[in-house]
């Protein structure tokens, strides 16, 4: 059983809310440079901020971006816009001055928000919660977050995660143990995170990009409501020999010129172990041989292994070896560039 790499993507923002929630240690709080996050200057107009936000939000949306930290960046972008779109919050934020740097240890000075009215009321805008500790210490929790305590029954949210598996596990099916970070709420309402371990079956013949739905394995529900679902998206680990294209497994097989010219039977690696494959005489480099059923198969669908021949010529280092090539040139003169003359 292998556990290679597992990273969590939660579109729900719920996890982040509690991970970075109000009980987090204030001393670890870091300054967030909202202008840098949106890529605008401190003098940007409200219109420029809106345009910059839309541009970076599109770029880092977790459904669109393939960057591994898109989820975090998208969350930061939403938070930055939540502050900078609102002239009052922006003015309050600007009071900290421009000397702060992203990630710097930060603690707001006492009464920093005197003269502003948002404090304690919770912010009203924004479509999602899960903002950082930095944000919540300045502007309070979201409405959604505050309302949560009044909701007695609520279905748990779905979780989305990617799981990286070796091709061999996809070929033959496997069992894996994975660990997710989950928020837990104790009797006093304090939130902490704890690892949640799951043992899952990777079905034989699963294809990259496919998702496995594990019913009821998402975040727990409240007030007796059911838990959400967990969606595991399959990603294949890079393999030095094979790569998959949907159900087919591809392999490049180096052969000698005489094996290709005269034909030969050679051992070819497959995900099922080596098999003997007959190379037909007169095979050119790039010729493809199909090994039926050696790809990713399910009960109803078949994948093959596609072997692409690559002729590798031996170096001629001695006179005798060079003479062999010369003899070939004399015995079988041929011009592979016929038809290329201009």
């Amino acid at each position, binding site marked *: 059983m292998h556990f290679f790499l597992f990273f969590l993507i939660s579109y729900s923002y719920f996890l982040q809310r509690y991970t970075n929630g109000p009980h987090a240690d204030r001393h670890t709080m870091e300054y967030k440079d909202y202008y840098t996050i949106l890529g605008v200057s401190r003098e940007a107009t409200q219109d420029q901020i809106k345009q910059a936000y839309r541009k970076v939000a599109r770029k880092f*949306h977790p459904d669109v971006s393939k960057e591994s930290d898109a989820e975090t960046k998208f969350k930061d972008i939403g938070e930055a816009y939540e502050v900078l779109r609102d002239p009052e919050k922006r003015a309050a934020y600007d009071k900290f001055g421009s000397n702060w740097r992203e990630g710097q240890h930060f603690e707001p000075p006492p009464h920093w928000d005197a003269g502003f009215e948002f404090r304690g009321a919770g912010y009203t805008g924004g479509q999602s919660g899960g903002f950082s500790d930095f944000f919540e210490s300045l502007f309070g929790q979201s409405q959604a977050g505050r309302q949560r305590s009044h909701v007695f029954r609520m279905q748990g949210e779905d979780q989305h995660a990617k799981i990286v598996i070796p091709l061999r596990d996809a070929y033959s099916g496997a069992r894996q143990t994975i660990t997710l970070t989950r928020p837990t709420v104790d009797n006093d309402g304090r939130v902490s995170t704890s690892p949640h371990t799951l043992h899952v079956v990777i079905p034989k013949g699963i294809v990259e990009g496919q998702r496995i739905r594990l*019913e009821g394995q998402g975040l727990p529900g409240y007030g007796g409501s059911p838990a959400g679902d967990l969606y595991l998206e399959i990603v294949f680990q890079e393999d030095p020999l094979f790569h998959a294209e949907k159900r087919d497994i591809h392999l490049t097989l180096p052969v000698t010129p005489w094996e290709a010219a005269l034909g030969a039977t050679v051992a070819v690696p497959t995900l099922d172990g080596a098999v003997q494959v007959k190379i037909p005489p007169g095979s050119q480099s790039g010729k493809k041989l199909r090994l039926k059923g050696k790809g990713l198969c399910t009960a109803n669908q078949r994948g093959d292994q596609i072997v692409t021949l690559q002729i590798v010529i031996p170096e001629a280092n001695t006179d005798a070896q060079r003479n062999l090539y010369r003899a070939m040139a004399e015995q079988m003169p041929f011009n592979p560039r016929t038809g290329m003359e201009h």
Partner: protein
Amino acid sequence: MTEHTIYIHGIVLNEETRCTLADLCLLCGVNAEVIHEMIDEGIVTPEGFSSREWSFSAIAVKRVQTAIRLQRDLRVNLPGCALALDLLEELEALRPLCRRR
């Protein structure tokens, strides 16, 4: 003491797995009207004549969930979602080819 590990079998959401309109609504947390609009836009395509007989490939679950997030997070309208989903699928197919070059 012997410990028995229980392994969970999930459902693979591939072309072979089918789901009804009710399943799709439940899995995506939307009502049937939303799915009807997505069908009109070509985001998902059911098999079967009436909505009671409709059957969707489980791939539809991902398309509907992504469309909902694009609408919510980026204010993309439905025709835009349909376009984005098709382009994203094309990108997904092309990315591995680029990686190998």
